[in-house]
């Protein structure tokens, strides 16, 4: 199949689908989706998956360490909570804009912003999970001679897993959504075709990109539910 590669956002080239666009701009042009799947939509989708995975991965690593430290040293909970809540309240476009002078129009800028927004949920849920372990279970573990590290690794973390995975699910879904906004700063991920389509008022492009983002969020959420179930067989065991 021969098709012309799409150009930049300002002078878009719709290739063979031009006719479809001229005739049907008020409607949905499935032909365009077919023609631009491999040069526009698929790369954007893959970029979006990477944006999300890296943001949640780094966010979780930071939040995990913060929750372990806060779990050990209780007095650190209020300042860390306040800091993550503060990050969460900063308007996203403003935050990305503030970062540009520091890190430029790069994927790094987007990732820093996205990581910041995951911390509140990931820190809060991980800490809540660690704190939800019944005190008698901890006492029995210590009484049996488990060291502090063994209590954490063998008892507290496995029991915190449901809360941790609930936090990761929320973080993944919100990051997928928020990452589309980040394309306003750096044209990357599914946000790029959304902004492109909006700019030239071409419905098909931003609608299908939005649908892909929603689909990605639903699939990611469903996959995480399955992973969590596989890791916590004991939660479904009832008399």
């Amino acid at each position, binding site marked *: 199949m021969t098709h012309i590669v799409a150009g930049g956002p300002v002078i878009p080239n719709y290739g063979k689908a031009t006719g479809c666009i001229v005739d049907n701009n008020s409607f949905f042009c499935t032909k365009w989706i077919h023609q631009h799947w491999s040069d526009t939509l698929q790369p954007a989708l893959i970029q979006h998956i990477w944006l999300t995975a890296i943001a949640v991965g780094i966010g979780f690593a930071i939040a995990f360490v913060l929750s372990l430290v806060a779990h050990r040293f209780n007095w650190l909970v209020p300042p860390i909570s306040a800091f993550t809540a503060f990050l969460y309240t900063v308007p996203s476009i403003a935050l990305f804009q503030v970062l540009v002078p520091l890190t430029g129009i790069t994927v790094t800028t987007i990732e820093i912003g996205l990581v910041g927004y995951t911390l509140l949920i990931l820190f809060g849920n991980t800490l809540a999970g660690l704190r939800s372990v019944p005190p*008698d279970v901890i006492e029995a573990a*210590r*009484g049996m001679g488990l060291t502090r590290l063994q209590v954490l690794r063998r008892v507290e973390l496995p029991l915190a897993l449901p809360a941790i995975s609930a936090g990761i699910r929320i973080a993944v879904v919100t990051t997928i959504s928020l990452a589309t906004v980040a394309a306003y700063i750096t044209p990357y991920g599914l946000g790029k075709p959304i902004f492109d389509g909006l700019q030239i008022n071409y419905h098909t492009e931003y609608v299908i990109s939005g649908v892909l983002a929603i689909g990605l969020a639903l699939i990611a959420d469903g996959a995480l539910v399955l992973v969590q179930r596989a890791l916590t067989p*004991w939660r479904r065991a009832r008399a």
Partner: protein
Amino acid sequence: MDPLSASATAAEIVFDRATKRYPGRPQPAVTELSLTIPAGEICVLVGPSGGGKTTAMKMVNRLISITEGDITIDGTSVRSLDLTELRRGIGYVIQQVGLFPHLSVGDNIGTVPKLLGWPKKRIRDRAVELLELVGLEAADAKRYPAQLSGGQRQRVGLARALAANPPLMLMDEPFGAIDPITREHLQDEFLRLHRELRKTVIFVTHDIDEAIKMGDRIAILHSGGILAQYDTPDEILANPASEFVERFVGADRGLKRLSLRRMRDVELEPASSAAADAPRCKETTTLRDALSLMLTEGSHEIVVCDDGGEPVGMLSLQRVSDLLREQVTA
């Protein structure tokens, strides 16, 4: 020999003026507690709440640190032992059981053996052996704690504490959260188990009846962890050392003493034909139950029968009363 090695069946525990003081509190939680628990005996720590009994028990495995004095296990100070080694050598049972909800029953029981590096097969075999010992089935090893009843959970807790065959068990109100019928059943089974295993047990309860039933010796503590009396149940009921002990054991201490003795423990009179209408009981019936039966039936004597229903002797109301006034024989 290492007092906490798995081959040791029981250990002698000595509290030597053990004291626990919390900063900012004028009165210690445990005050110069001194007592010796002979190897293989059940010592019950009993007293009103705030009496320091749980604190005293937790000083043994150092879940609570000792401020002054010492506690020794077969002559070795618990303060000189490595914390994790000390605890892995002591079976620990608590009221809420504290089973790990994310681990199967088998893995719960295997916790300490796994920490000690036992081979997998030995851990599995041990779990099955213990499940049968505490009256559960081998198939239960695969279930999760959420699938068990309260009584079953406490049995698993007991099996878990016994896993590495520790010479000492600490039990903190182990049957406190269980319904009365199951509790009595578990108490009886534990006593049977103890006759078999002969481990040293420190058992905490606030229930004097449970203390009398379970204890070879009872230590009664009153507020501030001060030892009010340390003796056999019979001696405490016969000769309370103070007004506090007398009040704590209750006005029915005579009846409680009767519940310590069974028909087979006392000298019976020959069964006479005059007692044909008298109520009958077994050799295992306690004197208390026999007395109750006599009073209910309005009889002055009771006939004791063997398992086959043949009379082996009889006991009169007067003799029960005489027995209570006898000196403690133990």
